[in-house]
């Protein structure tokens, strides 16, 4: 697949912020992998490493008033959206200072402040929610866009079809963001989808759809801005297929029997962080010292998040049955 030429570099401060955002996700998750072996983080842990450009570039194109719906591989979306690294890390530890009070863990990050409607651990489970959030915005006459993230694998589920049809039928402001990383666990795209051109499939619902180089954060941001503008202007749902790749196993339990090391190595040559950093170096807006400073800044933010999580507290067992129904004092 050849993509259109990459867009020009934005102004230096925006380029730096994109680079910083991707680097934060990368270093944050590398830390998570370590903490997983130390058993500070438990349960399932799905890393986004390799795919950082998708969340970073697309969320950069959203406004504060927009909403985000994500999957169980959502640390990147949460951080890019501005959920503090501290409360994300505390959530991964299961501490009550976490963004979901520790109840959800890695797969269930939530944050009302940034309209982050969750990690969802059921494949395709978030799609109908996104349609509903967009329906609410539409009925309330608000120009919010709902960005909905899901994997290539989710496109085989019935909920994908139902959501696409509803959104298109009712002309709702949803941006469908497919993260096509070529695999659903160990199942490659070709053995899961009868039509592997995913953007083409989306067009059959009568909505604009196009593929995007998901390793190029500038291309991601550019495409998303274009789509968001149109969605916000009443153009109905749009679909973006971000072609990307996860560098790590599906989860911490995956022996990776289904793909070759060569394939992984080939994709690593297009590491989204390196791609952007190189562009910036070529343009003379990044040098070794600048990169070192950025690394140091990000390392501090990650360390700080770990400290925050370590110092956090366990929710008392007496509160176990809270949040099954709304607390009386908060119920309207």
């Amino acid at each position, binding site marked *: 697949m050849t993509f259109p030429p990459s867009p020009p570099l934005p102004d230096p401060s925006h380029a730096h912020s994109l680079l910083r955002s991707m680097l934060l996700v990368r270093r944050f998750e590398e830390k998570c992998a370590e903490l997983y072996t130390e058993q500070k983080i438990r349960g399932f842990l799905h890393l986004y490493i390799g795919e950082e450009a998708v969340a970073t570039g697309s969320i950069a194109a959203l406004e504060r008033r927009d909403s985000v719906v994500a999957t169980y591989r959502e640390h990147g979306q949460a951080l890019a959206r501005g959920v503090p690294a501290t409360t994300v890390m505390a959530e991964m530890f299961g501490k009550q200072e976490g963004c979901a009070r520790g109840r959800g863990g890695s*797969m269930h990050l939530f944050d009302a402040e940034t309209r982050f409607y969750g990690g*969802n651990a059921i494949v395709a489970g978030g799609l109908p929610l996104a349609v509903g959030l967009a329906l609410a915005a539409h009925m309330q006459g608000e120009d919010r866009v709902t960005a909905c993230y899901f994997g290539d694998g989710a496109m085989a589920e019935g909920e994908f079809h139902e959501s696409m049809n509803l959104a298109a039928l009712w002309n709702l402001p949803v941006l469908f963001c497919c993260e096509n990383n070529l695999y*659903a666990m160990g199942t490659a795209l070709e053995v899961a989808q009868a039509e592997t051109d995913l953007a083409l499939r989306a067009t059959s619902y009568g909505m604009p759809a196009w593929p995007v180089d998901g390793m190029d954060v500038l291309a991601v941001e550019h495409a998303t801005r274009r789509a968001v503008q149109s969605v916000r202007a009443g153009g109905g749902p749009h679909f973006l297929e971000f072609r990307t790749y996860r560098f790590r196993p599906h989860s911490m339990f995956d022996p990776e029997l289904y793909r070759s090391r060569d394939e992984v190595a080939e994709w690593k040559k297009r590491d989204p962080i390196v791609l952007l950093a190189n562009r910036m170096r070529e343009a003379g807006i990044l040098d070794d010292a600048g990169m070192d400073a950025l690394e140091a800044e990000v390392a501090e933010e990650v360390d700080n998040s770990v400290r925050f999580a370590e110092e956090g507290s366990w*929710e008392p067992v007496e509160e176990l049955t809270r949040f099954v129904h709304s607390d009386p004092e908060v119920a309207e």
Partner: protein
Amino acid sequence: MKTTYREAVREAIREAMHRDERVFLMGEDVGRYGGCYAVSKGLLEEFGPERIRDTPLAESGFTGAGIGAALGGMRPIVEIMTVNFSFLALDQIVNNAATLLHMSGGAFNVPLVIRMATGGGRQVAAQHSRSLEGWYAHIPGLRIVAPATLDDARGMLWSALEDPDPVILFEHVLLYNMEGELPEQAGPVSIEGAAVRREGTDVSLITFGIGVFKALEAAEVLAEEGVSAEVLDLRSLRPLDDRAILETVRKTHRAVIIDEGWRSGGISAEISARITEGAFYDLDAPPARVCGVEVPTPYPEHLERAALPQVPDIVEAARGLLSGGEGDVA
């Protein structure tokens, strides 16, 4: 022969595939990935992609296709990764698999086996920790089986495949790594009837799946206190083995029912009702229940532990019955 629960299930699948050409395994990541709990590891190499059939993420579609294939003369084993994802296939399971025989006036039976992992205890949070065996046990037309031991894991699959109607096998996730001895020539095991796993005279601990092992541990603790607990492994949740349930209660006069599922409207409620209906005058105390606390399973270890039935809860409930107090926990 030393083996694990996981290997016992795998051997059962292998044997069935060899014995009957109509048998095939279908589900998400059963082939190239080797199964999400590594149950089917190596089977793709042995039987090929036609019979170890990787499916897309499409629970409703492939479960329904399993029903259709069963109608069409095959003997499918459909693997749904976990009970949590089976909700996407509920319509096919309940409206088709469980109902076609009746609606067709007996013309079309559905010889389908569905396997799925169930249960909590691995800190994978609410959407991945459900125990809803009791839900499925509510549905006429289904047989619900929960193999707990290695022998049952090895032997029940074949019996399930021989059944002319749909059978769902629930495998608790914490059992896959369980090790033990299995005879080289381990054969089929009936999917009917409960089994007493430990004899006792003072109190009956009635349970299934992972609960069996928690109950056996509790029985050890109780024995040290001079209390003789009998452990009944239900094995089949639909139909329930009424005879075995009433027999143990008539013997011990006290019952503690243990279920990871929630108490309200759960299988524990059904068992308790049958005990009071069938053995009311044999009871020395009201039946007690130790169930999952009525909350979606939280992620942190200490809250998850508190949300699920644990050995001390069972011991306490049993003590409560013997001291004449109320036995309900959670």
